[in-house]
């Protein structure tokens, strides 16, 4: 005959709700730590590529043309910045969230332009008929034109950033610029993962401290 005990807390596979929550915190901590290390590894390879491309550019352009002496020391704002918000995921998280704003003012305009172009294409789908090849080419060229228009301000910002090294720069220098841009994106992910890891660590630590006090 089974006796049902209504006083014990609800069990899930023999574990209390409290234990399930603790396990979830530990798992979150381990996951964020794993992601942090993976992102660092990815950053290392991206930076290595960037350094190699920079060294190649220095070799082709000459050391005097790729030099810190040429850096712009006049007053100017950063073209790439961060948006910092408070993560509202949990009430007491106190965790910052970072968002990268690359080539700041130009990228905001570009995203709006790109969205507008794609929504127009969806509203007016092209029917297939005789001469569809020409139509396809026209559509492709108009899409390319739109993407070029979107990319132009960003390209202008990129060229402006490289202008301190001269008007004509090595393709390797442009490639290095793109590599370091990619590294920046990874760094922002690392910053977010870091704050997630520390938040999960604090949760686990609090539980451990609470357990010690109980004993």
């Amino acid at each position, binding site marked *: 005959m089974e006796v049902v005990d209504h006083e014990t807390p609800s069990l899930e596979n023999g574990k209390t709700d409290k234990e399930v929550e603790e396990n979830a915190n530990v798992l979150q901590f381990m996951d964020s730590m794993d992601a942090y290390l993976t992102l*660092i590894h990815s950053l290392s390879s991206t930076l290595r590529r960037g350094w190699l491309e920079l060294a190649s550019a220095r070799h082709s352009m000459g050391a005097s043309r790729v030099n810190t002496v040429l850096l712009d020391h006049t007053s100017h704002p*950063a073209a790439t910045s961060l948006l910092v*918000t408070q993560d509202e995921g949990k009430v007491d998280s106190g965790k910052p969230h970072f968002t990268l704003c690359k080539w700041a003012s130009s990228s905001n305009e570009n995203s709006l332009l790109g969205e507008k172009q794609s929504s127009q294409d969806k509203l007016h789908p092209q029917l297939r008929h005789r001469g569809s090849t020409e139509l396809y080419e026209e559509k492709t060229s108009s899409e390319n034109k739109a993407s070029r228009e979107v990319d132009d301000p960003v390209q202008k910002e990129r060229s402006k950033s490289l202008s301190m090294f001269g008007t004509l720069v090595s393709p390797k220098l442009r490639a290095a610029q793109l590599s370091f841009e990619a590294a920046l994106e990874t760094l922002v992910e690392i910053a977010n993962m870091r704050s997630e890891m520390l938040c999960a660590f604090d949760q686990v630590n609090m539980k451990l401290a609470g357990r010690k006090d109980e*004993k």
Partner: protein
Amino acid sequence: MANRVQIPTSNSALIAMIADEDTVVGFLMAGVGNVDLRRKTNYLIVDSIKQIEDTFKEFTTREDIAVVLISQYVANMIRFLVDSYNKPVPAILEIPSKDHPYDPAHDSVLSRVKYLFSAESVASGRR
């Protein structure tokens, strides 16, 4: 709720750098360089330890900086300062450099959390 840390939010915060020449030049090409009206920059190409200490203290107290990138070998020179820093913003990220690959054993964030994996912490939890 009473102990919730208030995060200083910003919509145009800077990324500061304390690193070697190639790393700084690379990130400047990516557009993170900022020079204010007083000709103060958000980057330092490492030279002397004293300068690194002063710059680290400056960057971590500026309100317009959200992330500080520091080469790990540079962070090792001022390890006591980096490890004692515990604010959420600006976030300190240790990055590899050309001649010094990243070592997770020296990362200040991982050092802070590694004690969870030590035998002592496991044993104390079981008592």
